[in-house]
């Protein structure tokens, strides 16, 4: 197991280093003088001089990367010139909001996707299966920002049940917080629920066809108990690991969802930074996203290997 962990780490670390190089190199795409471009709206020579010094812009690219990477490792993601704050501070401030949104969305995805997947596997080939597959295709094809707009139209404009925007921290009022997060979480979870449904269906079909399930059925186990007690626990392993991999999709989707519902999270931070030409913040958010994502992939692999020793040889 330790050996497996070491092998996985040996692959993940170079991947992250290379990803950070790509993210750093994005700077080179900026037109004109890098210091002027990085300063954004500011044209103050003092600010430009500060940036030139901070990012060692008079040095060659690999050296600059070295300084930057050392900073990132030490927790220094750079300075947001626009907001007069360090990027690490901004990230630490916004990350919990996005994590809450992502967890709620995952709950929505599991609550819809897993029962639907079980039903369509158990009732394979019937109208329930067709319906579930249709719902999954709908979930995959509907752009989540449009779904968000439609929900605002229905629940905020027409019915007035839920607020269209306005985030309330849970420390202030948990109820108001959940009310504000209900629509964003549903919108974000919707697309993932389709993927979860497909994973669950495939995993359940595999397990339901196995010998031990047939034996249990022959011994007269009730159908409900057979599905929930005998089949589901074994089908759950791939569902959990594949679910963890959907996190990238969740982070991508959060950017749009937060924009529609004005949720002050990670995605909104990134989009606002893009428009303020606050490139240090954009880089900081992207590198944190990549690190989270690679970390989750690693965790999912390790979790799967811990549960199933056969995978350790892979």
């Amino acid at each position, binding site marked *: 197991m330790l050996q497996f962990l070491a092998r*996985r780490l040996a*692959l*993940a670390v*170079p*991947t*992250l280093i*290379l*990803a950070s*190089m*790509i*993210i750093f190199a*994005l*700077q080179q*795409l900026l*037109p004109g003088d890098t210091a002027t471009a990085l300063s954004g709206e500011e044209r103050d020579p003092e600010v430009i001089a500060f940036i030139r010094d901070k990012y060692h812009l008079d040095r060659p690219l690999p050296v600059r990367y070295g300084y930057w990477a050392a900073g990132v490792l030490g927790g220094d993601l750079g300075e947001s010139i626009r907001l007069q704050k360090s990027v690490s501070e901004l990230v630490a401030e916004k990350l919990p909001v996005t994590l809450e949104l992502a967890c709620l969305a995952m709950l929505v995805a599991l609550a819809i996707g897993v029962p639907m997947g079980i039903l369509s596997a158990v009732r394979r080939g019937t109208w329930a299966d067709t319906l579930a597959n249709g719902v999954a*295709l709908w979930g*995959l*094809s*509907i*752009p989540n*920002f*449009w779904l968000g*707009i*439609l929900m*605002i*139209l229905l629940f905020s*404009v027409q019915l007035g049940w839920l607020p*269209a925007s306005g985030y309330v921290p849970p420390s202030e009022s948990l109820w108001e917080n959940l009310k504000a997060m209900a629509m964003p979480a549903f919108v974000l979870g919707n*697309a993932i629920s389709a*993927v979860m449904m*497909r994973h669950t269906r495939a995993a359940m079909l595999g397990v339901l066809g196995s010998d031990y399930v047939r034996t249990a059925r022959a011994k007269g186990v009730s159908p409900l108990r057979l599905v929930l007690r005998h089949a589901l626990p074994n089908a759950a392993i791939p569902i959990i690991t*594949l679910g963890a*991999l*959907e996190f*990238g*999709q969740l*982070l*991508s*989707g959060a*950017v*749009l969802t937060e*924009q*529609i519902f004005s949720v002050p999270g990670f995605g909104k931070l*990134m*989009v606002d930074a*893009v*428009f303020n030409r606050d*490139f240090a913040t*954009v*880089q900081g958010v*992207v590198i944190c*996203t*990549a690190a989270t*994502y*690679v970390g989750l*992939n*690693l965790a*999912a*692999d390790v979790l799967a290997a811990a549960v199933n020793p056969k995978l350790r040889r*892979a």
Partner: protein
Amino acid sequence: MSGIDRDGAALLPSPTVVEGRRVPLPREPGTLRAFWRRLRARRSAVVGLVIVVGLVLMAVFAAWIAPYDPTETDWGAVRAAPSLAHPFGGDEVGRDVLARIVYGARASLGAGLVSVALAVSLGLPLGLVAGYAGGWVDGAIMRLTDALLAIPFLILAIALAAFLGPSLTNAMVAIGLSATSTFVRLTRAQVQALAAEEFVEAARSVGNPPWRIALVHILPNIVPAILVQATLTIAAAIIAEASLSFLGLGQQPPEPSWGAMLNVAKNFLDQAPWMAIWPGLSIFLAVLGFNLFGDGLRDALDPRGRT
């Protein structure tokens, strides 16, 4: 890293089942006819094909179909409700929504096709080289795609578009580059599977140079798998273009784009909901069409995958 491996597929709205499996190319006319028959037998694939062809015709003949110029403003039609004169209503400065939907198809389909063409033209050669050459070349190319896959698709596209500057062309480049790694992986997996086949072994033993084996013997056999993946990736690229335009990083006003129309429409939901209905429905239909057609194409090209 196997986690990221699998994720090449997870980035896209549809799972890529084609990876690693050899899909035979229908070459003789009889096979082509059989392929067409298999495709037609799938109702969902036909629906997808009809939607895709319809949208392509709409984009090509936009000038004849649209009742107005898409950028022409009419102060009498500002946020006008749907009527006979403006069947889909008017937008915030009195432009005809129907005309903008029709012309918007050009931005969406154009972005889908161009970005995927870019991704294929970069990813296919890289995947061929990685898969056939092996060794450190393969290692270098694969580590690079791993690194690109470590950044979620849309976030990479947004970051690229942000640094390149907002325009439709740059959005296409950003989406194309973000999708490239999927094609590198797919091509490499297909090439590796084929390289072990006897006909490749035979071609090698009669003294064909590696480039000739890769181009003449292997490439034609991986075209179907690439075609299926490209169709499904167009669906993802259309969503990505709409997302970037929605965020203001794609098509710039006053040129029409479905994503940009939705961005404006969200400010007028209580007064002019039709501004939000039609562009969203168009994106949904386009994505659904390519997903259905791509799924059908995969089933029709790979008889072994049939249930």
